């Protein structure tokens, strides 16, 4: 074993894997140097844990209003209900934990849609010269100026049925233009590099060029950008739900705030109903923002986000 140099034993594929592994380790090390990015990761991990464990910690019964009628409604925090109760007599702590599932699901799922759309449109508009390219670019520019929240609100209102899927779809198909613009710029810079010129000269197909050469180069920045999109989407979901456009049968932090507002929590001083959902939204959004900024600054030190 020790007599043979390792390079002889490694196939080229394994060598590529080793190289990627080393790059990944280097990336992890520079990410770990970002204190705020690590803080974001810890906060997010905590919330992910809560979301996963919600059914174990708080049996679904605790959310069923028909089974919580005997509880005092809008009761301030007590030994039994650490964060008090809502207008249906449910434990706010339990609702909060279950709501984490909805908020995180919507955030991640909608951002995934947005990521795919944004990457497709971005690479397409950067790669294809001519009509298709400029059309895609125009489309991106147009969607960029359409005010986001009004668009989301109108779309959700027009689509009518308020399921989790509808909300994911609405947020996914509206939040891609920022990603597309970023990917387009990155694609243009990648396409200017010599090895892609070579791929072109050798007659590589458009698909081959885009998938094998452009995509791997834009992917890291896309992931960083998507992390920031998750923050935006979670905030927007909260807004939608607060305006009564959420899934009425699903508890999310936004629906909690909507109900709290409907129950007059602000004017009756029911702070225990208002504070927790808002703080959860802030923490999760902050976590995604911190992670996204740290990723960006590791990938592109010129951004100066430290």
């Amino acid at each position, binding site marked *: 074993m020790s007599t043979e140099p390792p390079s002889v034993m490694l196939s080229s594929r394994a060598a590529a894997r080793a190289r990627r592994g080393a790059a990944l380790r280097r990336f992890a090390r520079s990410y770990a140097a970002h204190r705020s990015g690590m803080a974001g990761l810890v906060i997010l991990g905590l919330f992910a844990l809560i979301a996963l464990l919600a059914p174990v910690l708080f049996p679904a019964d605790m959310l069923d209003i028909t089974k919580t009628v005997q509880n005092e409604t809008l009761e301030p925090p007590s030994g039994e209900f650490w964060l008090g109760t809502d207008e249906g007599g449910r434990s706010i702590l339990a609702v909060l934990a279950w709501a984490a599932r909805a908020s995180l699901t919507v955030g991640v799922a909608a951002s995934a849609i947005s990521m795919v759309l944004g990457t497709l449109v971005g690479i397409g508009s950067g790669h294809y010269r001519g009509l298709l390219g400029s059309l895609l670019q125009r489309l991106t520019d147009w969607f960029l*100026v359409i005010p986001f929240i009004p668009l989301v609100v109108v779309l959700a209102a*027009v689509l009518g049925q308020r399921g989790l899927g509808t909300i994911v779809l609405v947020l996914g198909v509206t939040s891609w233009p920022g990603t597309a613009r970023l990917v387009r710029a990155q694609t243009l810079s990648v396409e200017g590099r010599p090895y892609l010129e070579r791929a072109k000269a050798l007659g590589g197909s458009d698909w081959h060029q885009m998938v094998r050469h452009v995509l791997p180069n834009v992917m890291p920045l896309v992931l960083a950008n998507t992390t920031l999109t998750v923050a935006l989407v979670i905030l927007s979901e909260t807004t939608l739900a*607060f305006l009564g456009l959420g899934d009425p049968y699903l508890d999310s932090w936004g629906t909690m705030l909507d109900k709290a507002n409907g129950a007059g929590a*602000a004017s009756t001083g029911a702070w225990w109903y208002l504070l927790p959902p808002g703080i959860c*939204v802030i923490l999760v959004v902050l976590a995604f923002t911190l992670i996204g900024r740290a990723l960006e600054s590791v990938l592109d030190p010129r951004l*100066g986000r430290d």
Partner: protein
Amino acid sequence: MAVTSPVATELSDDSTPGGGSGGLGRFIGLRLLSGLGTLLFVLLFNFFLFRLLPGDPAARYRAVKNISAQDLARIRDELNAPVMEQFWAYLRDPLALQGISAWKGQPVWDLVGGRAWPTLVLLGTSTLLATLIGIRVGIRAGWRRGGSFDKVSTGVTLLFYATPEFWLGLLLILTFSSGIGPFPSLFPSGGVIDSGIEPLSMAGVVSVAEHTVLPAVALAAVYLAEYSLIMRASIVDELSQEYLTTARAKGLMDHVVRRRHAVPNASLPTITLIFLNIGFIIGGAITVETVFSYPGLGLLTFEAITEQDFVLMQALFLVFTVSVIVCNILADVAVAVLDPRIRT
């Protein structure tokens, strides 16, 4: 000092360097043209967006009581026409000047017109607050990047950036106008002016101000965060520029280098970005006005949603979108006027 330079005579050429004049006019013309393109797209989009509506749209009007039989018949005919015909009708009157609100039975533009000024007051105040403070904070943080002010302000900024503005509004109501706690009912909540007061009188201005303080603070706090982050990033971008080294080498004081050289350069991208973000402020106005029952276009949007009034919604969406387009054009023109590289 009569220094004769051997080079002077040989090299003075008379041609004016750079491009000719009229660069600005051309730029503005092009910008208006592309704005027009965007507007056309938005009109199309606005039409088809509302065709996604399931169900019989005419049925929604039956519930309205104070609508005339003629209007109802006209609306029914319009809504049941084939899509292409509807589209032509829409193109002839994209602003839906004849549109009747399904909720109130009034022309939608009367409703919109009556609600515009509170929103203008609210957005004006909060934008002013947010830019004045946010930009200063951003400049200071970026200039001493990594310093203690930067660390604290960026932390606080990111926190505000993550805050839903309506939640901040609810907390403000809870603290300052719920009648409980240490500051009972410092500010009124609900409405934009006390009833029976003339808005243009002295008392009217005071009353509007009282009603606007809390919602404006809620909006401003969040957008202040956004502006300061943008300005900080722009300043940081300038920090490494060589012209700043030249400015320092000249013996200028640090704050002069910052004020006279760094800030004007950093402001150009900031202006563009701030205006690109104006759509988000409008979004914020919807929820904040709802929380404070502040009777502007945002609250009207919320009412249109709850009342399922799509004609009104369409009109509001058009108002919001067109405002954003116009703001973006204005921002680009402002940057072009300020930036000699575009202007000349």
